[in-house]
């Protein structure tokens, strides 16, 4: 089997960008009003990935832990920011809660996988740690966004139910339970769907990437299974932490619903 990697030349890249031009043309034809968005997103992708490519190139060459940790911090920062931009009405201490949850949820799971499972040597080996953490943080970000959005919606729409429970002598945790479990369910749906459809509906990105770069398909499959478990673990732990730390912020210290 041929395991040499086919590099893409600048000309190849220009050729594929012509496909984006076609999309812009089609969007224009249907008056979808997305031509500008497509153009700028395409350009942003090019610049962002080029920068990331050079940064990774540099970090791989440096072989020290500090730049790796720096990159992970930036990733977490962006993830928290993105979750924040998704919800209009934020619970009190939003950033502190989400930041802590992502740090422990994603950090914990990634650390678990890298040290206890694959036994990374050195522990910060950027070739593994950065892409793995990226996938874990990215997916947890999506799950956490869904959870905080749903939690806010539940507290808005189910005020009556929650207050009725409080008026009957319920603790805040029991009164909030339906809202919290609904938010948790929302966060986990993408992971459940992805695992169930894996290999049938689509070949997942990481596995495809590994196969394209010459990895034996069976090894790629094992990695994919492992990373899906890590991702699902991280999504659940991150979401769990956000919900446990966050639901109380909808209540006053004397255990009634906040008014706003």
């Amino acid at each position, binding site marked *: 089997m041929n395991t040499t990697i086919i590099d893409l030349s600048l000309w190849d890249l220009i050729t594929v960008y012509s496909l984006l031009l076609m999309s812009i043309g089609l969007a224009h034809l249907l008056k979808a009003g997305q031509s500008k968005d497509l153009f700028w997103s395409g350009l942003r992708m090019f610049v962002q990935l080029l920068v990331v490519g050079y940064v990774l190139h540099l970090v791989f060459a440096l072989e020290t832990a500090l730049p790796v940790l720096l990159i992970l911090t930036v990733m977490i920062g962006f993830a928290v920011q993105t979750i924040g931009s998704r919800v209009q009405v934020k619970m009190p201490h939003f950033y502190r809660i989400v930041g802590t949850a992502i740090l422990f949820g994603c950090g914990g799971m990634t650390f678990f996988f890298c040290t206890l499972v694959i036994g990374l040597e050195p522990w910060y080996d950027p070739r593994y740690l950065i892409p793995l953490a990226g996938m874990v943080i990215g997916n947890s970000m999506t799950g956490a966004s869904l959870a905080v959005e749903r939690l806010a919606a539940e507290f808005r729409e189910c005020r009556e139910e929650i*207050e009725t429970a409080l*008026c009957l*002598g319920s603790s805040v945790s029991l009164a909030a339970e339906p809202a919290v479990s609904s938010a948790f369910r929302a966060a986990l749906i993408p992971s459940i769907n992805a695992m169930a459809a894996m290999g049938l509906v689509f070949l997942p990105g990481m596995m495809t990437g590994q196969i394209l770069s010459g990895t034996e398909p069976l090894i790629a499959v094992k990695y994919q299974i492992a990373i899906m478990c890590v991702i699902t673990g991280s999504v659940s732990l991150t979401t769990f932490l956000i919900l446990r730390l966050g639901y109380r912020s909808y209540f006053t210290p004397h255990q*009634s619903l906040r008014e706003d």
Partner: protein
Amino acid sequence: MPLLQARAVSVSRPGEAGRLQRVLRETTVHVDAGEVLAVVGPSGGGKSTLLRLFNRLLEADTGEILLDGVNIRTIDPPLLRARIPLVSQKPFLFSGTVRDNLQASARLRRSVLPDLNDPERQELLELCQLNPAWLDRDARKLSIGQQQRICLARALLGPCQALLLDEPTSALDRPTADLLAQTFRELASRKNLAMIVVTHDLRLAEYCADRLALLLNGSVVEEGPAARVLSHPATAEARQFLSLAPVENGETTA
């Protein structure tokens, strides 16, 4: 000593343009066991705010509320709320059967579920005019009047000493409201409950209350036996309010 009393409670809430507005001004009311107190007044006069202070859904800025002589701030809110449940204007039922709803209070307090067939509970359901044949029906499919009766029985099935009722009949038609008013009366005397009914409906007050407190702009302007205040108000403010207030239910909304 009254079972439940508010002593000089004041509350300010953010009103229009975020400015603090005084909703209650050193308001003092009390209610004894077995007695129904109606707090009457126009919408926005602070009635619901006052009611919500008694089970700590809201906290007063100054003043104190005593249950059996004990400041309620020293009582754990869930315990307090089980002892002084609040039934709101619009009945809210949890999804499930009537039985599920009647047992909700115990379930939410992680307590043993009450046996609805024991004679004492049967009597309570009867007092609330709940048909035992409804127990296994979908609670949310019953009429609003029946739903409000379920809310009432649900609140009373806990360790209830006093009951707070916030415009309890405003979602009901007149005959249903009148029947429910009689139910409140009977429950208070038979179960020796202290009851505070907040309403703008003078007929409800007349039908069920022993005493009446008229709350205007956050202050009690007149208080006394319900029949006397309604027929011979002593103050000018009370006379003016009573001459304008609707006697029929549903004419104004709270």
